[in-house]
């Protein structure tokens, strides 16, 4: 079920998804005050230079706080947004230069599961129409769609007899299952799951996580799993990328990341998670001060500079943005102090 580098002898296999230097800026409408002062329009640097590989059958966890750009990154990889710069390769094919028609073909391979089980299903369409839509678009004959949708419902643990119902007739967990069925309808190889369990109750959350794991094993899926919940991320991921203000600050195999986090932000993040049975326990606790700076014209140097608690931080950190450097095999960090580039 889990992909390991050892599995492929010799040269490392080509990753399923390869992202290089990806940037996604959104223009912030310039007001008349800006024009009066001669300022150009300002930009939200939602994703600001991200390199990422996602391998076959692997789960890459992407964790970060709200506004760090993790959802934007996922949507840009699926080309729901047109990237500002950079390259996205899927199975060796460059996505950024594909036409809309070619992209529609590619969507057979890459699908998405959304966070909000209420907003992500059209209230006016039946389960058959919702789950069958990707099939319809890929040109599956209408007669086959209904049969296939019924199979999919069974696969995600819903009764096929519910095929003609509307989303409001289901509970939150059941709706999320519908959303999963929609994503799996065309047998994709790569699925982006954007906070798929954040809106669900604890017991339902566990059901959905189990379902996602089982489906991965059964269908050989690769997941990009996005969450703000470190415990959830640590449970599902093979490797984890930590994102802060549009950049990836640390990337490591799941066990390594929790055993020896290197970036100060990762360390603070892990120490901040309230743990069951932690009261009275003595443990290193890093309380970060303040909140992240705004992604509108973000700082030049290290994005974490304003909240960094390392003694070593200096002018280099403030002025020069650190690159994501491999410090031990498979463990990459973007920090001058850790990488020794101060």
């Amino acid at each position, binding site marked *: 079920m889990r992909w390991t580098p050892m599995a492929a002898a010799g040269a490392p296999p080509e990753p399923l998804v390869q992202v290089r230097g990806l940037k996604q800026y959104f223009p912030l409408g310039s007001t008349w005050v800006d024009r009066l002062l001669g300022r150009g329009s300002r930009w939200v640097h939602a994703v600001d230079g991200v390199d990422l590989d996602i391998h076959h059958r692997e789960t890459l966890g992407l964790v970060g706080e709200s506004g760090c750009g993790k959802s934007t990154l996922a949507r840009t990889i699926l080309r*729901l947004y047109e990237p500002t710069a950079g390259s996205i390769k899927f199975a060796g094919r460059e996505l950024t230069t594909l036409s809309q028609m070619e992209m529609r073909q590619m969507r057979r391979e890459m699908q998405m599961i959304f966070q909000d089980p209420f*907003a*992500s299903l059209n*209230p*006016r369409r039946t389960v058959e129409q919702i789950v069958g839509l*990707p099939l319809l*678009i890929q040109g599956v004959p209408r007669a086959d769609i209904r049969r296939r949708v019924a199979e999919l419902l069974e696969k995600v643990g819903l009764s096929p007899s519910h095929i003609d119902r509307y989303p409001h007739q289901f509970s939150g967990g059941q709706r999320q299952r519908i959303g999963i069925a929609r994503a799996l309808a065309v047998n994709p190889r790569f699925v982006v799951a954007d906070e798929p369990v954040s809106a669900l109750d604890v017991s339902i959350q566990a059901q959905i996580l189990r379902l996602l794991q089982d489906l991965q094993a059964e269908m050989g899926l690769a997941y990009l799993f996005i969450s703000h919940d470190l415990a959830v991320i640590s449970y599902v991921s093979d490797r984890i990328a930590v994102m802060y203000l549009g950049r990836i600050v640390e990337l490591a195999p799941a066990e390594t990341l929790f055993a020896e986090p290197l970036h100060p932000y990762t360390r603070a993040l892990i120490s901040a998670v309230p743990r069951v049975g932690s009261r009275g326990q003595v443990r290193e606790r890093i309380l970060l001060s303040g909140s992240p700076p705004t992604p509108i014209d973000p700082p030049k140097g290290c994005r974490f500079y304003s909240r960094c608690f390392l003694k070593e931080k200096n002018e280099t950190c403030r002025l020069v943005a650190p690159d994501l450097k491999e410090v031990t095999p498979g463990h990459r960090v973007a920090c001058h102090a850790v990488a020794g580039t101060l």
Partner: protein
Amino acid sequence: MAAAMPVRQQPGVTGGRRAWRRGLASLLDFWRRFRKNRLAVVGGAVVLLVIAMGVLAPWIAPHDPTQADFFRRFRPPVWMEGGSWEHPLGTDQLGRDILSRIIWGARASLTVGAIVILIATTVGVSMGLISGYYGGRVDAFIQRVVDVLLSFPYLVLAIGLMAVMGPGFSNMVLALVYKEWVTPCRVVRGEVLAAKRQEYVEAARAVGAGDAHIMWREILPNVLSSVIVVATLRVAWVILMEASLSFLGLGVQPPTPAWGSMVAAGREYIFQAWWLGTFPGLAILVTVLGINLLGEGLRDALDPRLGE
């Protein structure tokens, strides 16, 4: 949960029969929800009654609505002194039976209302969808046109247009459509702006759906209930406009009976013979009220989420 639900029908039943059955089921569903709102049912009954009145006018009207009789001018309604069952609501200044004229007048009002709203809604919904969905320059252009049209008082615009085109039924329809599409356009645009930010639109795009699919299949069904409500409410408004134009002598031309021109004619005799203007006025009031009640009931019943 899932397993406990009774199996209602076997998935895999193919062909039109299934679709037909589903359509019938949802229609029954709709009626079940609609029925709960008593006032809406009353409104619907009134509207049906008025429609029936217009359609069956030749058979149910006691007199020819255009037949003048100078010996029977200004007869009062039946319950007043000098009234008779021959003319239950009295006669007008030319001795024509008011009840018959109201029954025939329903035709003009309803036809104008239905035709104008049908055309205006089709145009307005398309424009609103395009405007809201694409945004940018397309939106700016359509909305400027809308603003210009909105800046004219409705009646003044209609009178101006009819002054150019000349009075008459089809010209009146055109003059009203000319501005009437603006309302559904605005409503739909606003709803589309809200709906297109919904995650389900993004989800449709993520599976590769094109603009046309998203506009007509994903967004339109979600704005349709407000369109229907607005359309019914505007029918009432258009009937009033028709009455106003006919009142001014620009709409339905005499001797064809129309509620608006009847009110206009009655105005002159309001102190001597109040029934001339009052009964057609009441007909307008009751019809408009009925349509409004029906519209609100439809809105509630059309939303599957409110059904439970």
